């Protein structure tokens, strides 16, 4: 099975994955990337005004998938 690595981005902070996962094919890796992105969102979005996060997938040769989630909170009344 191919070995995929999942690097995470939180605004400009980049964390490289040096362990990776063995998965049957790229669609399985895409699912893990989406789940990981959602988990990261759950952790960093509450309280944030603007945030851009992403999970990028590599195999042992090259980049195979880039995901990104942009969040923006706009208050319609000025916060007290």
């Amino acid at each position, binding site marked *: 099975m191919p070995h995929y690595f*999942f690097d*995470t981005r939180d605004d400009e902070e980049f*964390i490289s*994955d040096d*362990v990776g*996962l063995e998965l049957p094919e790229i669609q399985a890796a895409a699912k*893990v*990337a989406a*789940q*990981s992105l959602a*988990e*990261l969102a*759950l*952790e960093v979005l509450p309280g944030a005004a603007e945030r851009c996060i992403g*999970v990028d997938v590599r195999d042992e040769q090259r980049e195979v998938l880039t995901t990104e989630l942009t969040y923006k909170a706009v208050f319609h009344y000025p916060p007290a």
Partner: protein
Amino acid sequence: MHPVTHDLQPFLARLTNRSRLNEAEQKAILGLPTHFLHVDIHRDFVPLDTVVDHVSVVAEGFVARFGQNAEGERQITALHIAGDAPDLHTVVVPSDTVPLQALSRAAILRVPHTALRAVAARYPALAEAFWRHSSVDAAITARWVVNVGRRDAKTRLSHLLCEMAVRHNVQDGDGEVTFPFPLTQFHLGDATGLTPVHVNRSLKALAAQGFVTLSGRMARIPNWQKLVERGEFEAGYLQAGLQPGERLRIVD
């Protein structure tokens, strides 16, 4: 694995760390019949939906109790180490199924339900000790539900690592603590309901901030109290590290 002789001493130690047992009761535990089993890493030595007529006592290694969804994705519902009897309650609820997987190479001692019922009938204090053992497992499960349902990833992992440290009887103090911890980020994901990716990211952050590092199948906690606070951990539910006078004998 080295050819080591395994007996029920670790199980007896687990019982007597919480419950006061006299010499005859302790001998009765050590005299229980056992069937010895070496289990390879990742093997389900009690498969899903299996009804058993024996209890599996962990003599060596790491074992997971688990459940899974229709797609086969697993959730680890408990971790067990040497001395634990993960399915002890099947002695009195024989229809329950408790799937068990080895997370490392493991040594298991199977003890027949009939033999455990016989010693419990003869020695009420043993029935009490078994009851207490199962109750601690239930208390651990309750803490895990809170952990998985209501804590962020780093707190969740910190809590789990604190729990496993205490269950390994590490010295509780301000100093550095190390204990065997062979689980991969994949296992940790299954135990905490996180993707391995998020586990990896969170562990890196915890290591960078000096809370805990996992390497070489060991966990190293540089400052025990610091991780306890990070993991919102209170050890009382584990009934571990009790002084002899605090160990219980209530029924008789």
